[in-house]
């Protein structure tokens, strides 16, 4: 019984370590491309942005409105609440070419897109 317990513990540990190690990609050590976004009157400015492929990206989202917004994207797999009149920084992994939409989760109409080439 003790042997089986040890085996179960070992298998779990190995699986978790394996997943954690493979999640840290070498590209994360690269210099990130910076994208500056402004959020004002319930809209992103600009609404279309571009970035190079295979390079990490940092979004700097400046919220000029008097209420908080949540920068979110399912395809970028990030979310960040940015308080009123402040700036939020969102780091994104190196991306493959494609179009990635983002939006304010508190405001259905505020949307934008990142094109990675």
């Amino acid at each position, binding site marked *: 019984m003790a042997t089986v317990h040890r085996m179960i513990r070992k298998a779990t540990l190995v699986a978790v370590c394996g997943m954690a190690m493979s999640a840290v990609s070498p590209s994360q050590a690269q210099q990130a491309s910076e994208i500056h976004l402004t959020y004002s009157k319930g809209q992103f400015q600009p609404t279309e942005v571009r970035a190079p492929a295979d390079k990490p990206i940092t979004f700097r989202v400046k919220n000029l409105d008097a209420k908080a917004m949540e920068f979110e994207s399912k395809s970028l797999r990030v979310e*960040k609440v940015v308080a009123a009149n402040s700036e939020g920084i969102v780091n994104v992994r190196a991306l493959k070419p494609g179009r990635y939409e983002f939006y304010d989760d508190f405001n259905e109409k505020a949307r934008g897109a990142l094109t990675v080439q």
Partner: protein
Amino acid sequence: MRMRIKSGVSFALAFCSAACLATSFGNAHAEDASSWRDLETKYIFGFTTGSGIGLEGEKEFTIDTVGRFGKRDGHYSATETKYEFEFTPTQFIQIEFGALGSTHNINGVTDLDDRRQFAASGAFAEFRYLAIERTSSNPLAVTLAVEPTARSIDETSGTRVHNYEFETVVNADLELLRNRLYAGFNLLYEPEVTWASTGEVEREAKFGGSAALSLRIASNVVVGGEVWYLRHYDAANLTAFTGDAVLMGPTLYIQFTPKMFMTAAWNAQVWGREIGNPVSLNLAEFQRHRARLKFAWEF
């Protein structure tokens, strides 16, 4: 048989009603699928789990109940509820853990003691790693998951045991039509070992897969269907095959608010066999029906 059909029709009607109700709320004005936001696919396929791992920084509390109903004779119903906290620490990994509660209502079932009980039954953790991510040019996403579980109550009989399970799953899904139609696939291997209070040790494993198809009928409502093929072994290394079964049924996902959703699914066993027992269906290792209801709150 008539009861089976009747309960099946009731489930189907309940699903349709819920979907219609949700659609009428979510579709107050005509919507174009291209304007819909991207969808998290993890919970849109019922018992089949999609590849989604959430968003970095996201936390979620869920109550996930799976009910299993119907044996060869007598009355059998059992549920297991996961009270679960999940979070996504990186853009590739999701971690979940929580406690289990179970109920058993068994009366007159061959080989099982009569029982009516509710119990705190164990704990679990799940680690999910996104191996292949979907992009606008690649519709396929694949996640690998492991879920160690410890139980003090036997899932089937409700008796006191020490049970350890190590579920490993490949979750894959395909976006067939942008923002509209999704196909999901799971490959499952679930070995477990159980020590009964009598000192008896039982090793077993489940192996199988599923395919599911889900259609987004409104920005906040997804309906679909899934089919599972499951094999049961009396050994962890898949050497002592004891029977298999095919289960299928409808699925429903409703996003009530950006931070709250529910998923529901119902499967009926449509084919099964028990090795050495020439009867229809496999009700020794599987159940006649199973249902899932899950509510989640993100924060």
